């Protein structure tokens, strides 16, 4: 089984978000970048397939050279090789198209993504990628088993879950449940050393047009101070008469 894990490179969850150039650009100054948390679940599940079922793992990112540290981290966790498409990942549609090129050229049969990147929260790339490839697709995936070319995937739905059967090739958009959080892998010294020897291929993008473009960013309006209340009658009164939510 040939697995591709798509990795997006995002600000750490504790980051304060700032913008520059008249609020048209994200300011990476002082921001620590990490593997998108959902992609860590996908990568760890891929490692399980590698160890138990003899799969090979490639990790891919569409991004500028600064994302290579994140790809190296994925190699240190245990991916076999990495691909970076040398383009700014500003538009999900083109990111998905670039990734689709990789999948077609290298014949991957299983593509594991995260359910969304925690920066732009698009939740778009995996479904687009699957549709460009005409592969099966399972969104919000919280469990995945593969037996030969058959997959059983569990999908989170509003208020429950659904168990799905389908054939490979398959793209999933995964999250916690794919593996448990305590089982997430972190790179060890040996992994880090080995990662240095692993192949990281840089390829040039094939797409030039973008479907969407950010024109500006805004921060939420400053909040008025919290009203501190000392009894529940007053709380009920305010929620009913002022906020009108009960």
């Amino acid at each position, binding site marked *: 089984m040939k697995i591709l894990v798509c990795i997006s490179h995002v*600000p750490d*969850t*504790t980051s*304060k*978000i700032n913008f520059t150039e008249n609020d048209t650009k994200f300011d990476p100054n002082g921001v620590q970048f990490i593997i998108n948390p959902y992609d860590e679940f996908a990568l760890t599940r891929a490692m399980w397939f590698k160890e138990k079922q003899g799969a090979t793992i490639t990790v891919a990112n569409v991004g500028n050279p600064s994302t290579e540290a994140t790809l190296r981290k994925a190699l240190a966790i245990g991916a076999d090789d990495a691909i970076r498409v040398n383009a700014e990942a500003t538009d999900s*549609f083109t990111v998905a198209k670039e990734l689709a090129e990789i999948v077609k050229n290298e014949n991957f049969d299983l593509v594991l993504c995260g359910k969304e990147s*925690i*920066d732009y*929260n698009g*939740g*778009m*790339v995996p*479904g*687009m990628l*699957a*549709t*460009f490839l005409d592969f*099966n*697709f*399972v*969104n*919000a995936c919280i469990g995945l088993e593969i037996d030969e070319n058959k997959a*059983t995937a569990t*999908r989170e*739905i*509003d*208020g*429950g879950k*659904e*168990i*799905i*059967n*389908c054939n490979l090739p398959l793209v999933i958009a995964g999250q*916690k*449940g794919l593996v448990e*959080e305590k089982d997430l892998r972190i790179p060890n010294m040996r992994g880090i050393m080995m990662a240095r020897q692993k192949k990281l291929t840089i390829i040039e993008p094939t797409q030039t*047009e*973008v*479907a*969407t*473009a*950010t024109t*500006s*960013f*805004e*921060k*939420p309006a400053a*909040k008025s101070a*919290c*009203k501190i*209340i*000392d009894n*529940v*009658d007053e*709380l*009920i009164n305010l*929620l009913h008469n002022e*906020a009108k*939510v*009960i």
Partner: protein
Amino acid sequence: MSVLVFAETSEGKYKKTALEATSYGKNVAAQLGEPLVVLTINATDPSALFNYGAEKVLSIANDSLKSFNAKVVANIIRQAAEKENAQVVIIDSNANGLYIAPMVAVNLNAGLASNVIALPSSVSPFTVKRKAFSNKAFNNCIINTPIKVIGLSKNSYGIIENPVTGTIESFSPTLIESDLTSEKMEQTAGKITIADADIVVSGGRGLKGPENWGMIEELASILGAATACSKPVSDLGWRPHSEHVGQTGKPVASNLYIAIGISGAIQHLAGVNSSKVKVVINTDPEAPFFKAADYGIVGDAFEVIPKLIEKLKEFKANNA
């Protein structure tokens, strides 16, 4: 040309988000000076959408669509969009909406903006505002393609009545083949989900243990609310993972969010910030949640919640 909304049903009834998407679609159609067409599958009463501005309802009745298959539905939306020459396609943000929107976008060779929270600020260039950075910011984004797909964020626009005289047209699209099948669904019946709830009552580690959730459940049931929890609470196994909210859990966009014994860590707030009104109950006046909340009580949950339950019961009895 037209604006097309996909209005999802559950057991024949429109979901709230379907009515919200229709209300929103009506206004986008007005901005563009085009009619609003709404596509729906197995609705008991397709005409219910006239009340929210649907000039035309494309109604599909087909038993083989009772079980949801994203690829099949995304393809049906493409057929409807082509038939109606839709310029804008609007899809809600329920689990199924989030699943199909990117597929529809590729089917129509269209740019998609997900998590959209307001009407387009301009239709040329077509510009929408969306949530990003886990609610820490918004981005204004242009969709360049001839057809535009919008994923409408829940509870961002509201359900707005706008009665029109409409028509119902029955629609029989071709159903594409798919080897993907649903083996089974497991849904907790009768429980309000975080996704659907107007009010969410959420508990944190301050509640000390799973045995203390009785009062959280009771408070939620009086308010008709869903229950939720912070991440450590689900990690500790006090509550199911499906209740975990925050940046890495479920997003909450309810009208009212009540946080009990939750400190208000940045990752927690990121996921609940888009709730309209936030109430915090915490013993520690320095807890960061007080900076993010609208109303706060500094106090012990074990004293405050039972009192709140008692008073709310009286309030509900008087305001029934």
